[in-house]
């Protein structure tokens, strides 16, 4: 029994050390957002701000670059992507799972193929295409490419396939149209899976960097991920680490919030996306 207790203690110590090492940079990010600028690179490190700044670094970040505008743009982009992927992903997933129409196998293969295309392959031709649409440097150009993710179709097809056919038949007996039945019966039943899907799509879209970088030039149109580089490598200006850490904290809060409030769906979404992504 004593050997076992010692084993447990050893496990705890190893886990503790690993947790400290991996959490350390996040700790530095959050505490630095509240430090005075000279304190940030202080050696030895100040584990907590000695001169607590409250929101001064955030204000500084918002004065140097349109931080809240970036935040708004990132939010808009992510929410549109979530709404489109969740709704049309569920609709198509249901269509693929519960209807036998000609061309079904081919069309599903067609959609799944797009899962294998890494975005970096698309960036050059997509840029030329979107430019030809006249969407360069605009919200449609920023948001529309990438707003639908084939993973959503794939995931929803699996969940829709598990829905009992009797439920759908019961809906039909009541005289509901097919689309009405989708809205009233299928969508509510898919809700838990849709929550996981919404979270994973939000995380992906919130962090998207390459596409906004090439398609948007106006700082008023840019997203937080690209805007952040204004602080770490400002044009003809020394790096503003305090503002950079404040803005980085702002960029992490929405994801951290999802993690705290929807932990189970968060983990499920990440795992599902990895397994079939």
């Amino acid at each position, binding site marked *: 029994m004593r050997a076992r207790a010692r084993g447990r203690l050893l496990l705890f110590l190893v886990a503790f050390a690993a947790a400290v090492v991996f959490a350390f940079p996040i700790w530095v990010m959050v505490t630095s957002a509240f430090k005075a600028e000279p304190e940030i690179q202080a050696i030895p490190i100040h584990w907590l701000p000695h001169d607590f700044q409250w929101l001064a670094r955030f204000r500084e970040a918002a004065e140097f670059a349109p931080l809240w505008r970036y935040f708004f743009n990132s939010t808009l982009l992510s929410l549109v992507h979530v709404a489109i992927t969740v709704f049309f992903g569920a609709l198509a997933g249901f269509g693929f799972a519960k209807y036998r129409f000609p061309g079904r196998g081919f069309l599903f293969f067609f959609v799944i193929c797009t899962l294998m295309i890494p975005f970096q392959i698309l960036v*050059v031709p997509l840029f030329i295409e979107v430019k030809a649409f006249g969407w360069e440097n605009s919200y449609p150009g920023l948001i529309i490419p990438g707003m639908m993710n084939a993973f959503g179709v794939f995931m929803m097809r699996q969940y829709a396939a598990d829905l009992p056919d009797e439920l759908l038949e019961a809906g039909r007996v009541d005289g509901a149209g097919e689309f009405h039945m989708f809205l009233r019966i299928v969508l509510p039943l898919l809700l838990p899976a849709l929550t996981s899907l919404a979270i994973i799509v939000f995380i992906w879209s919130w962090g998207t960097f390459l596409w906004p970088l090439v398609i948007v030039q106006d700082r008023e149109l840019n997203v937080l991920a690209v805007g952040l580089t204004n602080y770490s490598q400002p044009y003809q200006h020394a790096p503003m680490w305090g503002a950079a850490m404040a803005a980085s904290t702002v960029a992490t809060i929405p994801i951290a919030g999802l993690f705290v409030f929807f932990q189970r769906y968060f983990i499920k979404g990440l795992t599902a996306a990895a397994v079939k992504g």
Partner: protein
Amino acid sequence: MRRRRPLNRRWWGLVFVSPVVAYFAVFSIFPVMFGFALSLTDYDLLDPPNWVGLDNFYALFADRLFLTAFANTLVFVAGATVPVWLASLLAALLFDQAFRGRTVLKTLFFLPVLPPVVVVAVVWRMLLHPNGVMTWLAGAWRGVTEIDWLTNTVLAPLSMIAVHDWAAIPFFMLIWLAGLAGIPPELREAAHIDGATPLSTFWHIDLPLLRSTAVLVAALSTINAFQTFTLQYVLSPDPGGPANSTLVLGLLVLKYGFQYFRMGDAAAISVVMFALILAVTAAQLWFNRRAS
């Protein structure tokens, strides 16, 4: 009198999938085809594209910058796969055990998954300042006050790998944990009763059942690493530098395409990357099939 018959039910399926199919035709499949065509041309966005056949590909294999980027990408892939695979498995095994404080410590360990990659890069750029915190941690005890983490041609690629792995290990731990959760506990209990040591239980029971997870982690980490770009772009004071030591294929696409406006060459590099990634996916499928 003819009655209007409602649309045959099965056609509704086609109606439901058509928005998605139309969207992907325009924003995925067409651009991919277009990209292949583009890789066979010279195009600078101003003059109409000029057909050159496979010349862009021949040129790539004589292009020093491309060969450098190719080699750097392979080094990055090596550093971002094998250590991540091992460390994330060990972390999962650790946090799969029962001990006090496990949930809290696991959550702390998991924190690097939360910030977007750009945030990871910005925060680490500060930590890896030549006189910064990491130098203090690594050098203070032996009197070193300055380390060129990001501006030394040997250290910079290693720093990129270390930062990438810091964020990737907790993520892949999650995948391993999901795999471990799928192993019926009775199997382990039976092995325990039969007098198996924890190590042999792991070797003979867990590992064979984790086979598809093992292939998945290997494939996914390789595919992600081939596409790396954000870290090299944001973390380094000079994207791809110093002296092109962190120039990777993803960065070269951006450089040729949007800095030099050599769209044909950029598209050709994309095609090469696509081929590499498809090869990894094919290997994954082959391994999975052999397993079952």
